[in-house]
């Protein structure tokens, strides 16, 4: 016990140093955490990139089939490129932190995409970083449309996001694209593709489980709507 009293100042000073790092230089913690976190094991970066390209091309095809301008809807040239710093470390939410903030022109509510695929919206902004609420957050909700017919649905986030509130009278097939249709967001950004259809819990609507061509944990850079 005596060593503890002798060394109490070491712990106080070390705690103060950690508190300063947490408050003023959190990026050191993010880097250390990135080193401890798993890297993309299931897919290589090239595989993810190819899958995302494929999904993006499918979206442009859908847009052309439905008579809309794919070029205007998938134009990402005027976005802000940002790297993913870290992510929410518990299961309650799904958030990622970007290395660009209000100084780079990022604003709250703007769409965030990964290789043309919508992954979430900016929730809060700091001078040099921004927090993005992803579609995998349980509280995420946004209107979407499905397939070339533009069937209305509501995207509900979670570990397994779903397109809900789909009318029982419409036909949705597996592989149909799901894309954004919310005011305040660019129209026709790909979200995912329909994986399987089922009836809602109250049997009033249909809902669709979705497939995604990326793994959120593997994303290293994104594009934020300007």
């Amino acid at each position, binding site marked *: 016990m005596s060593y503890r009293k002798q060394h109490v100042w070491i712990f106080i000073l070390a705690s103060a140093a950690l508190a300063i790092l947490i408050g003023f230089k*959190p990026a050191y913690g993010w880097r250390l955490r990135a080193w*401890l976190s798993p890297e993309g094991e299931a897919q290589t970066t090239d595989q993810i990139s190819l899958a995302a390209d494929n999904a993006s091309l499918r979206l442009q095809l859908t847009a052309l089939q439905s008579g809309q301008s794919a070029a205007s809807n998938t134009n990402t040239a005027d976005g802000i490129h940002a790297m993913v710093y*870290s992510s929410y*470390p*518990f299961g*309650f*939410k799904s958030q990622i932190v970007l290395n660009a903030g209000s100084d780079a022109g990022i604003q709250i509510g703007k769409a965030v995409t990964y290789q043309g695929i919508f992954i979430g919206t900016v929730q809060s902004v700091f001078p040099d970083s921004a927090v993005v609420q992803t579609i995998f957050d349980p509280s995420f909700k946004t209107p979407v449309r499905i397939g070339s017919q533009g069937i209305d649905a509501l995207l509900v986030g979670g570990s397994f996001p779903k397109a809900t509130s789909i009318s029982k009278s419409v036909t949705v097939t597996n592989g149909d694209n799901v894309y954004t249709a919310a005011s305040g967001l660019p129209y026709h950004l790909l979200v995912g593709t329909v994986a399987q259809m089922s009836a809602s819990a109250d049997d009033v609507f249909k809902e669709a489980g979705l497939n995604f061509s990326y793994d959120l944990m593997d994303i290293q850079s994104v594009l934020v709507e300007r």
Partner: protein
Amino acid sequence: MITFLAGLVILAFSLFLQFQLAGFGLWFNLALAVLIAAAFIFDFWELVFLDLFAVFLLNWEPAPTLTLITFALIPIAAFLSKKVIRWESWIHAFVALAVGFLLFYLIIDAHFFTSHLITFVTDLIVGLLVGELVFLALS
């Protein structure tokens, strides 16, 4: 000092495991369990250091958040409860783990708690096991 270093290594490993499991969609609050158990082993400033070490690695945005403040305060509250309640340490640690996890869920997102009860129960069981094992190993 050896006990403290062992505690630090166990905490670092629990954080590593927590991050790895999260990559597979498995969310267990292993670090919280280790810190609550540590509250019954270490002195106040040793616990504060371990607590801040975990916060340093778990912190994800450049501003104080309710999640991390709650995470940091629960082990401190467990430590302070020793001054008020005089139970057998392992029983006290067991109760503190259960109450700590319950408070963590309720304060961070009560709606998540009610809608994901199975997630909470699973996390709690794993937390109780890990916490008690760490307590027995270090005490």
